[in-house]
């Protein structure tokens, strides 16, 4: 099928009234959580996932995806106006964006961030369209051995590119894998770690894990350290960048788009890594690096384009291979499964309307964000004045309603409280929870493929290294692991994650 035919299907689907409406709701909610510090897209998607049950799968995915990339737009608003990252991916936008705001150029910074994000979003959408079919065709030739190795590569890559201790992250993956074993074993029907509780027979509901670790644990942590947000500036200045500002930001936007598009596809990549990398690159190649941190518009344009491009291209491995590259994509996989769609390369063939509809909706969503975002700035700023003491109680209630309504199960609410305790514990001992969620989602799939591969090969583990694609992936995982454990690279890596 040709690309234009596919896009016609996609736009036909995405332009239906229902899908347009939920795309708008998604990007608005996304901008909202992006603006509000202390509430991220991950917890929001987990919270809203249960209420998408009544929708068609494509509508649900369109809305949930809108939350993710909408949050990238919203995060920059808070970073520029308040000098607080509304989102982890806009940490670097604070550096120069807020300095611009102090000099009365807040409007220009916001406009450049929005235009940069839109350019990046458009390019990322085109890229997804272009690579979707070849990637899927490749993936359809994968056997169980290749799949197992690919998932292993994904998990290792996620560890290497994530921030924090590598050993802790590896341990967290194993914790996630073990939690994924809970429930009835599909092959033998044996009950594993269910303790006779019927609610656990189908496994731990992953919304309880995601909300507990990322939502509840975070609330408790925010409460103790306090959230200060008194720095709201009311003066926006002109929304139009000057000719000089436009000239300066054009190339950083293109570079940021390229960096984000590549890094988004990699395991462990996505918005956060892309923004950091783009800022580092802009600073490195600038004629006068000392301007950075003083309000250089390049330091806003590059990272803002990159985080949006990265957010969108991270959908590529999720949609074509069925493999999540970051924790949010793990949630999207969960959403597909809950709607009865087995993630993987067959989605493109069996659900073309869903596949292309989601992609087309991303471009429409980006357009909506560009148009509605700037006029609504005043509203977002007003929302920033909502104190955290009210906000967290609302998050708590929404979380509880969300978790409860998955299975109408009070047990899940208690389980979420348990994972909230665990999430707080992880924050206190300095262990990132994202690898756990990846391991949890990939665990059952990896087990299934490993078992199948072993049965085909007659128990010979050499099969994993005898097939060339599988071998290549295993070697790549090993190389990544060795590299990241080398002392020299460790230094570079920790520098890359430090705030410039």
């Amino acid at each position: 099928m040709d690309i234009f035919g596919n896009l016609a299907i996609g736009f036909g689907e995405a332009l239906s009234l229902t899908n347009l409406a939920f795309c708008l709701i998604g990007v608005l909610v996304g901008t909202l959580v992006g603006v509000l510090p202390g509430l991220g897209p991950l917890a929001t998607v987990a919270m809203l996932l249960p209420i998408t049950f009544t929708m068609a799968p494509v509508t649900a995915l369109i809305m949930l995806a809108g939350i993710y990339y909408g949050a990238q737009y919203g995060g920059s608003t808070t970073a520029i106006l308040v000098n607080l990252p509304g989102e982890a991916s806009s940490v670097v936008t604070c550096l120069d964006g807020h300095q611009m705001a102090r000099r009365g150029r807040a409007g220009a910074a916001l406009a450049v961030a929005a235009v940069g994000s839109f350019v990046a979003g458009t390019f990322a959408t085109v890229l997804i369209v272009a690579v979707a079919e070849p990637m899927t065709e490749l993936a359809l030739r994968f056997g169980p051995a290749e799949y197992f190795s690919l998932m292993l590569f994904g998990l290792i890559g996620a560890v290497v590119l994530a921030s924090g201790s590598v050993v802790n992250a590896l341990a967290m993956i194993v914790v996630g894998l073990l939690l994924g074993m809970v429930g009835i074993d599909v092959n033998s029907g044996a009950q594993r770690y269910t303790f006779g509780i019927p609610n656990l027979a189908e496994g731990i509901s992953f919304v309880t894990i995601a909300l507990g670790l990322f939502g509840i644990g975070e609330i408790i942590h925010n409460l103790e350290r306090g959230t200060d947000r008194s720095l709201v500036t009311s003066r926006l200045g002109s929304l139009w960048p000057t000719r000089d500002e436009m000239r300066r930001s054009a190339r950083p936007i293109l570079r940021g788009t390229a960096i984000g598009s590549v890094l988004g596809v990699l395991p462990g990549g996505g918005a956060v890594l892309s923004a950091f990398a783009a800022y580092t690159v802009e600073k490195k190649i600038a004629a006068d690096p000392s301007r950075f941190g003083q309000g250089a518009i390049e330091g806003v344009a590059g990272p803002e384009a990159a985080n949006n491009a990265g957010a969108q291209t991270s959908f590529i491995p999720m949609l074509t291979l069925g493999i999540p590259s970051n924790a949010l994509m793990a949630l999207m996989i969960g959403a597909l499964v809950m709607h009865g769609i087995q993630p993987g390369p067959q989605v493109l063939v069996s659900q073309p309307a869903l596949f292309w509809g989601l992609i087309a909706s991303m471009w429409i969503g980006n357009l909506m964000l560009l148009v509605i975002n700037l006029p609504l700035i005043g509203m977002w700023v007003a929302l920033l004045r909502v104190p955290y003491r009210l906000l967290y109680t609302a998050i708590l209630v929404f979380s509880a309603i969300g978790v409860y309504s998955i299975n109408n199960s009070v047990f899940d609410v208690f389980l979420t409280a348990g994972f909230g305790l665990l999430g707080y514990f992880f924050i206190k001992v300095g262990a990132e929870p994202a690898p756990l969620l990846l391991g949890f989602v990939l665990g059952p799939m990896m087990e299934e493929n490993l078992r199948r591969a072993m049965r085909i090969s007659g128990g010979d583990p050499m099969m994993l290294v005898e097939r060339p694609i599988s071998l290549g992936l295993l070697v790549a995982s090993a190389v990544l692991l060795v590299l990241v454990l080398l002392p020299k690279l460790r230094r570079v890596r920790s520098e890359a994650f430090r705030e410039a």
Partner: protein
Amino acid sequence: MTLLRVRDPQRLLFAGFLLALGCCGLWFGWKLPTGTAVRMGAGYLPKVLSGILIAFGVGLAAASLAIDGPRLERWAWRGLAIVLASLCLFGLLVETAGLLVTTVVVILAATAAAPDRRWGEAAVFAIVMAAFCTLVFRLFLGLPIPALP
């Protein structure tokens, strides 16, 4: 001269968690059939993973005695207890008291965790939220949660 000194309490605590989880995994998964590599039983991977966790736990515990790390921060027990308790309160109330009452109660209970709490404001907010949640989740989205007792 001290022979053993905890240099990285955070890491030691994490190691303890991994050890405990790994041991639980082995203990409760012991009776599951292991099978062979060709035909893996339900217990094969759980046991392997539990073993890996124990290995990680031992390794990290050893490292915590050798390498210096950040000190353990204080735990905010009060906030922790109140937030978790309010969440459980939702679970206990929602099926009997209905969404309206539950929302008000949970928001008021959770407010106790805020260092800068204002009860009057919280009461108004609780009523607004109760109305909003009932309207959106019950009437608009049609979730099967009873609105009233």
